[in-house]
Every structure is written in structure tokens, then in C-alpha cells.
């Protein structure tokens, strides 16, 4: 286990103990230690950061080779190669990027004849872009190729049982695009040697998610596509809001939280069989975590007040209903291991100050 992470766990325990014991000098010392650790963390992270160029620099050659193999003309633009990423993320992100670029070249960029017919320049462009924003690093792969044929993708997904016809009616363009990331999926008419075996893109998605990131796809037919990867800057230490449901403690990443609020039962409205509230003029759906997580309830509660955590994913909001808020804390993100995979709405675990494990809520999974 990473030394600094061990320190963070023990700091949490000391804080927990010092609160219980309520000893003046102990409290002061723990606070001082926390401040020093904050500075240390900054220094350590800076030492671990590596420019993404080390991963990007293999791509120009790869693209030249692919262009020759596939008889296509491709121009690769790299922007933001100096953007820095944590060393461990750099090690893991290479393979997914290789696959995504191969995907753009193989399925995205059309051959020169097809491009001419569409009125596009014969040479296709692939842009590889990296930049920082907030607590994240974004890596985008943009191409001016054929875009994703959503009808074809949907038809294939339905025929493979990945989604049903009914489900497809309520899917957004973005969700349909992202069907290509589902396992066992491939729409290539002819499976070229490069990609199209239907094995790769779902592995890309799980690798990125295992790094604490996510991938989304925007695409316009005949214009092009953008694959966006979002990765956390700090690999494993995140700030969370601890909440309680019955006796269970869950952690909600602060980066997803807009606000916390206490609402009255009377403020809850019903829209299309979904409980919602009016939050600053917006209609926000409520997600009752006790239901999602099947928390065993002692007796049925008929509360007048509800504690709600308003979370965001892109433009969309949701209100997570919990029993009570415990407080904000910095925690070490721990994996659930290789035996328990794909637990719905749980992205990992952490060890609390009292030594017990708490699960971390994956807000993105709860917002449709």
C-alpha cells in the first residue's frame, strides 16, 4: 500500500479518536499534522506527475503505419502533450488510447474515395487532445470521419440482446453512441485485422473506469466523432461527504455534489411515476438510496424531513435521499478487488477512521 495513503488512513483515525477523547493538545496537533500533510501531498503528487507526451509519442508512427495498411490518408494532430498525469494512470491509459485511435482510423476515417464523394478533403484528421479542468484530466480523440451510424448500432445492439426495442425508444443519441462500448459488440461489416472483433471497446471502458474515470462519445454522422476520456487527477485520494442510512455509512464523492439540502415531505412531487423536487427552479428526480441499496429497515419511517444530497453528472441533476449527513472527509479510495465486480452504483470502498469499510457511491450510475 502506498505510504501516503497509509498516512491518510491513520490521520483519519487520529481525527476520529481526538474527537472522541476531546483533548485540546491532541486536537491541535492533529490539525497541524493535517495541514502539513496537505502540503506534503501536493509535493508528492507533483513528483509523480508525468507528461502525457510519453504515451502520445508512439502514435504518429502508429498512424502512419495504419494509414498505409488501410490505404487511407490521415493527419494526426496532437494538442496538449505537456499535460501531466499521475504515473500510474499513464501506465494504464496507453492500451485504451491505442485501441481508440485504431478505432477512429479503422471505423471513423473513410477511404479517400468515400471522402471525396462526401465533399471532404481526402486527408482525414485525427486530433488527440489533452487538458486539465478542475480536478480532472481530459483526453479527447476527435476525428472528422464517418461518425457513428446510430441506426446500425441500435439494430446490432438489439439483435445481440444488449438493449430491448422498448429501451431504445428512451435512449439519447449519446447513449446509443455508447452502446459500442458494450461487451460483445461489433458493427464492422468486414472485420479488419486492426479492430472490429468486438472485444476491445468494452475493455477500454472498464480500464478507464477502473482508473476512476469515464468515457463518453459524441458523434454526428458524416461529420465525425469525439471520444472523451475523463480521468481524476489524484488517483486515489478523494474528498467525500459521508452519509448515513439506517446504521450503514456511505461515501459520496464531493466532486459530484452541488449542494446538500433538507426538504419536507410535502415538497416532494410526483412526475411520471418518479418522485421529484423543485430545486432552485429545476425539477430534480429523487433517488432513495435506501431502496437502491436495499438497506434493511427497522421500522417503516414516515419522516417529515428528508436529507438530500444534490449531485450532478454533466447537465443532469439528481437528489440522493439519505437519513442524515455525517460530514466531509478526505478518504483513500480502495478497490473492492477482483471477486466482486460490477456492483451497481458502487465505485469502490474506503476505510473509515473507526476501521470499518464504507462503500463509495457511484453517482454517475444513478443519473440517467
Amino acid at each position, binding site marked *: 500500500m502506498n505510504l501516503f495513503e497509509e498516512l491518510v488512513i491513520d490521520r483519519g483515525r487520529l481525527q476520529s479518536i481526538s474527537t472522541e477523547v476531546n483533548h485540546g493538545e491532541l486536537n491541535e496537533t492533529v490539525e497541524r499534522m493535517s495541514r502539513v500533510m496537505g502540503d506534503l501531498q501536493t509535493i508528492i503528487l507533483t513528483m509523480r506527475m508525468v507528461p502525457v507526451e510519453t504515451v502520445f509519442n508512439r502514435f504518429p508512427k502508429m498512424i502512419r503505419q495504419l494509414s498505409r495498411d488501410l490505404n487511407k490518408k490521415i493527419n494526426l494532430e496532437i494538442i496538449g502533450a505537456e499535460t501531466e498525469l499521475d504515473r500510474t494512470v499513464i501506465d494504464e491509459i496507453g492500451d485504451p488510447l491505442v485501441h481508440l485511435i485504431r478505432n477512429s482510423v479503422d471505423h471513423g476515417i473513410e477511404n479517400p474515395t468515400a471522402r471525396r464523394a462526401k465533399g471532404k478533403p481526402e486527408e482525414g484528421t485525427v486530433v488527440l487532445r489533452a487538458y486539465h479542468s478542475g480536478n480532472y484530466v481530459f483526453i479527447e480523440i476527435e476525428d472528422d470521419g464517418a461518425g457513428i451510424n446510430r441506426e446500425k448500432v441500435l439494430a446490432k445492439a438489439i439483435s445481440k440482446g444488449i438493449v430491448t426495442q422498448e429501451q431504445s425508444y428512451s435512449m439519447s443519441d449519446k447513449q446509443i453512441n455508447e452502446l459500442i462500448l458494450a461487451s460483445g459488440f461489433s458493427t464492422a461489416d468486414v472485420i479488419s485485422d486492426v479492430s472490429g472483433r468486438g472485444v476491445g471497446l468494452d475493455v477500454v471502458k472498464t480500464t478507464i473506469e477502473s482508473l476512476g474515470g469515464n468515457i463518453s462519445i459524441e458523434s454526428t454522422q458524416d461529420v465525425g466523432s469525439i471520444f472523451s476520456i475523463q480521468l481524476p487527477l489524484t488517483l486515489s485520494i478523494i474528498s467525500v461527504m459521508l452519509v448515513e442510512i439506517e446504521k450503514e455509512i456511505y461515501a459520496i464523492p464531493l466532486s459530484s455534489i452541488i449542494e446538500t439540502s433538507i426538504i419536507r415531505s410535502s415538497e416532494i412531487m410526483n412526475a411520471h411515476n418518479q418522485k421529484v423536487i423543485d430545486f432552485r427552479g429545476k425539477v430534480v428526480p429523487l433517488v432513495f438510496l435506501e431502496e437502491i441499496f436495499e438497506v434493511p429497515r427497522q421500522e417503516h419511517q414516515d419522516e417529515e424531513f428528508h436529507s438530500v444530497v444534490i449531485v450532478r453528472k454533466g447537465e443532469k441533476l439528481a437528489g440522493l435521499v439519505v437519513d442524515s449527513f455525517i460530514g466531509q472527509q478526505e478518504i483513500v479510495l480502495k478497490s473492492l*478487488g477482483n*471477486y466482486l*465486480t460490477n*456492483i451497481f452504483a458502487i465505485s469502490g470502498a474506503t476505510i473509515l477512521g473507526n476501521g*470499518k469499510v464504507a*462503500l463509495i457511491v457511484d453517482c454517475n450510475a444513478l443519473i440517467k
Partner: protein
Amino acid sequence: MTNAVEQESIKVIVFQLADKEYAIPVSHVQGIEKLMHITRVPKTAKYVKGVINLRGVVTPIVDLRERFELPISEHEETTRIIIISLEDMEVGFVVDSANDVIDIPASAIEPQPEVVGSLEEEFISGVAKVEKRLLILLHLEKVLNPLK
């Protein structure tokens, strides 16, 4: 099973579930722990009780009684968690008691007998008669697979 034949004997950890004794090769055992707080993980199989903090590593826990569909009983002073490692997975098994470490001579191992209608069948890779005891050898992969 062929593994055992290649050696003269295998060293196993013996544990108890209900009235039977089971054995797991020590090469797969990371440790034996007393019961500790288990954090429930929602939407997992019924026999997955949750996860524990094992010296800083979050480790999933399987209740073997539930896995084998044996009647559930109260946890006793003797109840233990045996930490198993298989390939890249680490999982803890809750057992009634973990008794000893013994060597099973290869000659004492027999293929599993046909026990009609027993769920356990799937999880057994053989049995061994050592002194007067009948030890059931667990097939770890089958116990841990498939999950969900």
C-alpha cells in the same frame, strides 16, 4: 486432482462446517482471522456477506454455509474467516471452526463419491481418508465461480 498425485502429500488446512470437515491446500490460504465487522455490499449473491478491512485491504466475505445451502447458525467463539487466494482474487470464507493443518498422503485421496441430490457435489474435488477422519477437498474455483 492430478496435482495431488504429482506430490507425495499435500498440506491442507482443515475446517468444519456443520458436521463435516473440509480441506483446502495451504498454498491457497493467506491466513485465518477471527470474525470482525462485515460491511454489507448491496446487490450481491446471498452468500456474499460483504467486505472486511483486512489490514488495509478491502476483502470480500463468503459465508460457506450459505454457499452450500446448509442451515444458517449463530456465529460462535470458534467461528473463523479463512482468507483464500485464487489467481488474482482474495476472498474470505466464514467457517464454523478452523481446526488444524495436516498432510494428506496422495494415496489417501479418492475422487468424490456420487452423493445424489447434494449441492455440495459441485464444490468437491475429492475426498481423503486420514486416520479416522473423512476430509472433503474443496474445488475452490467452483466455489468462487460463477459470482452472480
